[in-house]
């Protein structure tokens, strides 16, 4: 028989009232925690996939679309850029390294990406089975792609033209799987990786000619010269170039130069992601405000519950005092009840929030192969618990003070 058992005994007296208020608070907390989980994992995922890439260069168009298509493989590409122009950019002294991307095909919803081995290394990809692609028409699968497609080393497949499932087949070309990667937790897991040359072959170009153009680009080294020779040769193209700078100073001059003086577009991942977050952010803020209203109204609910309970319990409080309880003891009793109700609500809310997140994660995985989990704990959720606890304390404070000041003999005398 202590303050806790007494608190639970009183909660049992008014189960419906208590339960409704606790549920109200739980829903508010659930909404906020769900929001935190989504925002955190979205940002985390975007940052991880963009880490270490200073600039993305692709065809002119929407910079966000360029970032989404070439960093996250979510949107369709803005178009293609001439290989020669890309090569000349790669030779720029301000550029430390580049990774080419050739997009356009897919297999059962998984994108086929023509790139270099350095792309795999950049995302920390390790070989699980087989090897990385070597010669033309060899592919290495990301972990998720391999698992969901049910393909293993040695299997062959005919790619679909386009990034959607229903597109037509390149029936005369077959890719051969030579390796599968370990999971990296990045976008690479969901890709089918091959060489840029393989993508060209599938689209009917002879990679040998491209080599000549590469050599020629090296000789002349300017965009204008290359454009002069364009009519004689097939124009080899890639979709985008992921660029790392040699020094941050390049950030000032290089993107502006590319956007103003070439047919290409430069987009900066950090800038575009924060722009995107700002666009999405309004919705997040509105939702957060809504959840906040829910939490505050639940706090008021707990307050009215405790306050009503107080007037019903005036005699009981007087009896507590007569039985030897100090003023501090009855103050503590009410604060404890407020805090307990809010903590139960908060814990319930976090359980609900994480459960919804986990269920959504399972659904997202099945429908869109997006990785989202409710089984993580964010530091911010400690603050959420603290917030709920404070609301409970504040809700219990006024009844507690009134219990503290209760005129015991007056109440007892009235009978």
């Amino acid at each position, binding site marked *: 028989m202590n303050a806790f058992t007494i608190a639970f005994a009183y909660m049992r007296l008014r189960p419906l009232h208590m339960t409704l208020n606790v549920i109200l608070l739980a829903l508010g907390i659930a909404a906020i925690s769900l929001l935190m989980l989504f925002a955190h994992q979205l940002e985390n995922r975007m940052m991880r996939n963009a880490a270490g890439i200073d600039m993305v260069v692709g065809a002119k168009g929407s910079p966000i679309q360029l970032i989404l298509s070439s960093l996250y493989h979510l949107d369709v590409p803005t178009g293609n850029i001439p290989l020669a122009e890309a090569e000349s950019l790669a030779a720029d002294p301000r550029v430390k390294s580049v990774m080419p991307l050739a997009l356009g095909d897919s297999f059962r919803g998984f994108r086929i990406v023509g790139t270099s081995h350095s792309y795999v290394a950049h995302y920390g990809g390790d070989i699980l089975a087989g090897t990385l692609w070597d010669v033309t028409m060899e592919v290495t699968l990301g972990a998720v792609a391999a698992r969901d497609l049910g393909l293993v080393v040695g299997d062959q497949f005919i790619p679909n033209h386009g990034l959607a499932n229903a597109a037509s087949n390149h029936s005369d070309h077959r890719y051969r799987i030579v390796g599968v990667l370990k999971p990296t937790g990045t976008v690479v897991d969901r890709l089918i990786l091959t060489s840029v040359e393989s993508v060209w072959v599938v689209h009917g170009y002879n990679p040998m000619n491209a080599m000549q153009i590469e050599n020629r680009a090296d000789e002349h080294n300017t965009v204008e010269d290359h454009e002069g020779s364009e009519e004689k040769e097939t124009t080899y193209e890639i979709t985008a170039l992921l660029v790392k700078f040699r020094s941050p100073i390049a950030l000032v001059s290089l993107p502006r130069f590319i956007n103003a003086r070439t047919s290409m577009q430069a987009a900066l991942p950090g800038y575009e992601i924060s722009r995107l977050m700002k666009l999405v952010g309004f919705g997040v803020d509105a939702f957060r405000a809504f959840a906040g209203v829910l939490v505050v109204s639940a706090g008021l609910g707990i307050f009215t519950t405790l306050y009503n309970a107080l007037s019903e319990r005036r005699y009981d409080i007087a009896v507590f005092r007569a*039985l030897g309880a100090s003023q501090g003891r009855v103050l503590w009793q009410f604060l404890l009840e407020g805090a307990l109700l809010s903590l139960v609500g908060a814990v319930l809310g976090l359980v609900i929030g994480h459960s919804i997140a986990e269920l959504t994660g399972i659904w997202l995985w099945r429908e869109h192969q997006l990785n989202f989990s409710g089984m993580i704990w964010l530091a911010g959720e400690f603050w959420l618990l603290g917030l709920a606890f404070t609301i409970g304390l504040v809700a219990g404070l006024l009844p507690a003070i009134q219990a503290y000041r209760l005129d015991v003999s007056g109440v*007892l005398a009235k*009978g």
Partner: protein
Amino acid sequence: MALLEARGIRHSFGGEAGITFPDWQANGGEHWIFFGSSGSGKTTFLNILSGLLTPNEGIVRVANQNLSLLKPAARDSLRGKQIGIVFQQLHLVGALTVVGNLMLAQSLAGCPVDSAFAENLLSRVGLMDKSSAFPSQLSYGQMQRVALARALINNPKIVLADEPTSSLDDENAQRAIDVILEQVHLNGSLLVVATHDERIRHRFQKRLGLDPVETKS
């Protein structure tokens, strides 16, 4: 040295004319009746003696400790440990079981919670089989015995009972006093019953009249 002592007590509520209480003292094991009509201040006097109410004037000593010199929390603690109170309206805590009410009194007084002792005390007042019932499931007579057991749970030196028989019929009034006297006797406590009930007056040798007329005579 008296166990419970009141000297020069005078108290008024708000602007009303004050009530002056007679000087009085009692020792352990004595059984007293405070007799007076409604409004004579019986309940007020009991509240002053138990430290629930601090009088405008005068001092109360419990085991030679001046209540008005104690800090509020110490006064509450002293009351919890040394004084058992049976309220006129009983004031059992409806949220708790019968035995829970007894353990509540142990806990709030800062005494160790001893459910075996509580059960034992319940069987002493004939409620052994009601320990896990809630007060609302009991008859008035049973509730009164629970209230008595709760007043005795910490083996107090002093037991104060406010109008324990006024709402009972003749037979039950005598039975209630039987139980109170019997249990208090077992504990060896000082008993003070405040009442206007003529039917139980003859059960007590030590009497204190609280009606203004009687105090003057």
